[in-house]
């Protein structure tokens, strides 16, 4: 691997760098990319998005070593607001604070080719983007650049921290062709991105959980303050969370929704508590008509809240108040003559019934949706758990050989127990939680069995996984019973 002097900057980065070096998948023409690739995962949540194009224009040739604020353009772009999406170039970078000098060559290449960036309008920038990318991929100097944004896409969805050993295996396995052309590198990067890795994921998840669960420091603050190092940005939200007195201030929408550019509105997720504060501030200022966004912003004293947020919220608030007021006005004028009473009586009853029926239907839909959502969450959780188990098995396969297992029959037994159980229980009052517990227990059982029975060949995994998945539909079938009324 070629020496990478620019990559010594961050500890985490160095770790990933070494991982990627080990992977051997990197061609020599991709000096800088692995780091940004890896670094993206933890940083994405907080990344403000700066228009890449602006950066290009202001810093055409940044020195390699300097810390720059760029990153794979596409990444940030993807989750920018809609306006950002369409108006900015395809290159709005995600996180100023995370991207460092490693992106500098990236930028310089881009700037060199800036003239050749076509700005053909298209139905969505997607195909445009890919055309641009493939265009660039043909140029040798741009290979590193073009793979980076791709990784950006695949990775921005946050889902794909890569793991060292998996890179090799997945790179080998998924690659369609084994020749090491530059396009193959692209594919390898894509695969690497897609490979799941729990080590990095928690960082990301943590950030999201922290930011979404208890209403804490709004992300906008983080978005707009350019950070120097990615590491500092990670603890930052947590620190700020602690400092907020009222537990449930605004939970700003998850990172992907942020847009760092000043003109575009950072997406903010309002909560009732935050709204309450807003209402108080407005009433202090003399009502929704008299209150100004600036005044409200000052009174609310919420860090990270921008005047844009307040402005749009105030507008909504005024609209919402206006309509009820006008309808109240008209109701005051109503004085029904008595002859209408009989007609009204009939329609009144009908109306009541209609409203009641409507409410009932809505309630039911709501129930169903809740149930469905919970199921979906659990299904995915179990899917993830299974995945984890498979990975563990892969890892330990080489180490443990030929552990004789009396227990391979057990998963089958437990699943067969579950299956006859379920039809009988269809009419029963099994609570959804119990069903989920059963499912999770079944998985747990097979997990412990798996771990105790390390098989030398992977074939064993498949029947076990089938049996663990076997009880799943049955259990899911059980859980449908509470849905019945």
């Amino acid at each position, binding site marked *: 691997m070629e020496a990478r002097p620019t990559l010594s900057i961050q500890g985490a980065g160095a770790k990933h760098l070494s991982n990627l070096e080990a992977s051997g998948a990197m061609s020599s023409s991709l000096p800088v990319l692995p780091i940004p690739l890896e670094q993206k995962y933890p940083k994405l949540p907080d990344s403000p998005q700066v228009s890449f194009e602006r950066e290009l224009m202001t810093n055409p040739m940044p020195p390699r070593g300097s810390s720059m604020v760029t990153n794979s353009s596409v990444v940030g772009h993807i989750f920018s607001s809609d306006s950002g999406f369409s108006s900015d170039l395809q290159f709005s970078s995600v996180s100023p604070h995370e991207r460092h000098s490693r992106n500098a060559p990236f930028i310089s290449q881009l700037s060199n080719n800036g003239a050749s960036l076509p700005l053909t309008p298209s139905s969505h920038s997607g195909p445009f983007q890919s055309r641009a990318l493939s265009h660039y991929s043909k140029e040798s100097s741009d290979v590193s650049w073009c793979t980076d944004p791709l990784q950006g896409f*695949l990775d921005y969805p946050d889902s794909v921290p890569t793991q060292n050993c998996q890179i090799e295996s997945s790179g080998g396995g998924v690659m369609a062709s084994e020749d090491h052309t530059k*396009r193959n590198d692209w594919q390898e990067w894509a695969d690497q991105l897609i490979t799941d890795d729990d080590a990095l994921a928690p960082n990301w998840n943590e950030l999201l959980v922290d930011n979404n669960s208890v209403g804490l420091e709004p992300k906008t603050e983080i978005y707009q303050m350019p950070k120097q190092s990615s590491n500092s940005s990670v603890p930052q939200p947590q620190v700020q969370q602690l400092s907020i007195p009222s537990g449930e201030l605004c939970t700003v929408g998850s990172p992907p929704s942020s847009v760092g550019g000043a003109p575009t509105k950072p997406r903010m997720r309002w909560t009732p508590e935050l709204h309450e504060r807003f209402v108080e501030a407005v009433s202090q200022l003399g009502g929704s008509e008299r209150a100004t966004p600036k005044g409200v912003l000052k009174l609310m004293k919420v860090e990270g809240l921008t005047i844009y947020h307040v402005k749009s919220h105030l507008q909504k608030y005024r609209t919402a108040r206006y309509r009820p007021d006008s309808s109240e006005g008209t109701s005051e004028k109503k004085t029904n003559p008595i002859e209408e009473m009989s007609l*009204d009586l009939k329609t009144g009853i009908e109306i009541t019934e209609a*409203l009641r029926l409507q409410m009932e239907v*809505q309630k039911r839909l709501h129930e169903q949706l809740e149930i469905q959502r919970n199921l979906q969450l659990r299904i995915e959780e179990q899917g*993830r758990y299974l995945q984890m188990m498979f990975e563990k098995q892969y890892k330990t396969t080489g180490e443990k050989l030929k552990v004789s297992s009396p227990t391979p029959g057990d998963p089958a037994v437990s699943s067969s127990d579950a299956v006859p159980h379920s039809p009988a229980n269809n009419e029963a009052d099994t609570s959804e939680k119990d069903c989920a517990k059963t499912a999770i227990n079944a998985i747990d059982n097979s997990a412990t069995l798996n771990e105790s029975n390390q098989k030398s060949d992977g074939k064993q995994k498949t029947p076990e996984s089938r049996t663990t998945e076997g009880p799943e539909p049955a259990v899911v079938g059980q859980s449908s019973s509470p849905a019945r009324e």
Partner: protein
Amino acid sequence: MKFGKRLKHQIQETLPEWQDKFLSYKDLKKLVRLISSAPSSSSLEGVSESRKAQLDFIYLLNAEINKFNSFFMDQEEDFIICHKELQQRIPKVIATWGPNGTEPSEVDYIEEMWEIRRDIVNLHGKMVLLENYSNINYIGLAKILKKFDKRTGGLLRLPFIQKVLKQPFFTTDLVSKLVKECENTIDAMFPAVEQEGERREHKGEREDTMVAEQSIFRNTVAALVTMQEMKRGSSTYSEFSLSPLNLVDSDLIQSF
């Protein structure tokens, strides 16, 4: 019925301003088809075509998620505001026109309460429809990711879905809470008002609001029916499929 058709049906039945906010399932499917099922084709153009299509797909996916998030959070904000307003209106009405209020007037009181009730029901309906929106889009995403993985032999689905689960548009807890609060409010406030409300109403006004209610109502019914159909056993039933949904009054609902 295939999911694409059901989704189309839902979109037709949905509130007009929502219609372009749903998942562009068809477009995504087209992209998946473009991804050649023979990635090891010899021609370089073939390979790059497929990769381009994959890129496009992922790009579009992310754009869609963006779209969902903004729409969802926008609606959520509106709901928060409306909900709060309604909650505030009730004590105001009681204080003004209620029996112990400043200007007791049974007529106005009843009138106002009716309107509040209607507004709460409509708000409730809209919120539930938003949850449904979130759900339908999620299902669509899961399906299209499954197709994508099948085509490319890739493993995009699992991690991507994990990420989707955390998106604002899928984390509908707040909306759910507001929905329950509406239900509680209705139950608390309006069993009493029900008898009085029968007495008088303005017909004309009713008609206006009935239109709004009907569209919400129709959409709700459509959503329920769709859900039921989607959860019927399908050929690709797997461990990731949902269980069949058995609604007791499905016949009644379908008659709407």
